[in-house]
């Protein structure tokens, strides 16, 4: 193995991180803009950077769209005074934002976001690491994100963050179960007998060349979507934050850059959740239900598949935001009720139903 083989993956990884962080920053902007549209306001439209912002017409349009706001937001977080309240447990207090952000960024390693045709004419996924147990890795690592919230709540040594952390933990446990059960049928469906894909996300996408799985398994998709909303702590399930009753929830005692890290982590989770939903149920980079893969070979095909995948992710991010500004927050006990008494039995029933259905179909075909 020569020197270059070590260097190139580092550049790939850096590229992916920068794209991902940009997406995070601009989904914050999208949140503010979509919110303002829904509430019939104008939204962020003032921030301007010197040279680009002063190009005659383009600069004005970009400014009105708020394109420069993420930079301003980021700089604000960076240059604000770092305040550490006296009553916190210092080590854990500083650890929490890192623990919140790291898993969210780690999961993107196994995310296949496009496809290319290799020299043998085989379709291969574009991912930093195409591992066979992609979904297990994502589920395992992304759930670690809740430790950031728990640590933040506990280390803050104050009652509101503590309550937020407790709620978040309870919510995580209840929805993780339903989520896991809801995607089992998906992998049963994708990994037909004789296929060698196993639990890889690429296999699921390849199994959706016909109709997408949201059409074959609408109940799984619904449960997964609800669980994703709960896992990412988004409205209507943002129990951890619920600013009306818990001030700011787990990040009440955090300010400046540490708060910024929590903020980015939340949006990273949203993007990961959207990507996962697109991969599992919306056919990944496949064009339309029934029209599998019209992209040409070569570089252009790679670009097409990747951008189509990104487009679907954008739609899902928009859906997350759209949902947030349409729904009121659930009451805490309602969240628990929904998770344990409705989604979990439904997921089990759905799982059993698809076991029988898939066994039946397999018996027909073999």
């Amino acid at each position: 193995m020569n020197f270059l083989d070590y260097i190139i993956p580092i550049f790939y990884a850096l590229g992916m991180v920068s794209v991902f962080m940009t997406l995070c920053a601009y989904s914050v902007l999208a949140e503010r803009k979509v919110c303002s549209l829904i509430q019939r306001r104008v939204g962020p439209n003032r921030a301007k950077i010197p040279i680009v912002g002063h190009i005659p017409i383009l600069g004005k349009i970009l400014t009105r769209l708020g394109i420069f706001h993420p930079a301003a937001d980021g700089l604000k977080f960076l240059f604000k005074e770092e305040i550490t309240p006296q009553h916190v447990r210092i080590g854990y207090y500083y650890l929490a934002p890192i623990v919140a952000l790291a898993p969210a960024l780690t999961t993107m390693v196994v995310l296949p976001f496009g496809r290319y045709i290799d020299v043998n004419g085989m379709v291969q996924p574009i991912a930093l690491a195409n591992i066979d147990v992609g979904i297990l890795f994502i589920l395992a690592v992304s759930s670690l994100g809740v430790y950031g919230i728990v640590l933040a709540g506990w280390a803050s040594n104050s009652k509101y963050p503590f309550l937020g952390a407790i709620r978040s933990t309870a919510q995580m446990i209840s929805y993780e179960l339903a989520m896991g059960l809801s995607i089992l049928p998906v992998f049963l469906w994708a990994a037909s007998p004789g296929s060698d894909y196993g639990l890889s996300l690429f296999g699921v996408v390849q199994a959706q060349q016909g109709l997408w799985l949201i059409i074959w398994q609408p109940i799984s998709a619904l449960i997964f979507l609800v669980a994703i909303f709960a896992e990412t702590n988004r409205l209507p399930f943002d129990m951890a934050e619920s600013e009306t009753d818990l001030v700011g929830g787990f990040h009440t005692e955090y300010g400046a850059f540490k708060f910024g890290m929590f903020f980015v982590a939340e949006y990273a989770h949203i993007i990961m959740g959207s990507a996962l939903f697109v991969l599992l149920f919306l056919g990944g980079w496949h064009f339309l239900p029934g029209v599998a893969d019209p992209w040409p070979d070569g570089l252009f095909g790679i670009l097409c598949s990747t951008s189509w995948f990104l487009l679907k992710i954008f739609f899902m991010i928009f859906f997350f935001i759209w949902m947030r500004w349409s729904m009121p927050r659930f009451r805490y006990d309602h969240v628990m009720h929904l998770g344990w008494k409705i989604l979990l039995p439904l997921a089990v029933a759905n799982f059993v139903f698809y076991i029988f259905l898939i066994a039946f179909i397999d018996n027909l075909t073999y």
Partner: protein
Amino acid sequence: MAKTKVLERKPLTFSEKTYIPQIASGLAATFVNMFKKSVTLEYPEVRPVIPENYRGVPTLVKDPKGRVKCVSCQLCEFVCPPKAIRIKPSEIVDEESDRAHIEKEPAAFDINMLRCIYCGLCQEVCPEEAIFLQDSFSLSGYTREEMVFGKEKLLKLGGTLPDNHFKWDKKKSAEENTEKDH
């Protein structure tokens, strides 16, 4: 005692229990809103329409001939509830011909805007229609001294308002007529 009417609360139907139709209609409502015109008034560039009888910052006005209307009668000073107005009266200094029949003018006219409560009593009491609360509503300054508006500033804020009477012109011509008669 009024009779209480107990409304029967219907049990939720199955579709309502799933939340899904309600969520869908909620999403539709917000989606439709996204394409409606924004109701934001982008403030510093676009100013709100101020109604005619708005009570903004008190100002001194001039008549269309450019004369200061105030005759420093001090009624506003006396009526002002928070004692924000201070007037120093003086005789007309320069004996211009068109001001000859006005008896007095203010040498200094200060309104302490930190005391003013925008009640509009000064406007109501003014016999000369010289002080008006106009449409200016946002004022700020860096020091307390800056917030005491002097005569020049008040006149600048006030500008010129139309005058229906030209009281002093009438008085002048009346006096001239009587002089002629005698």
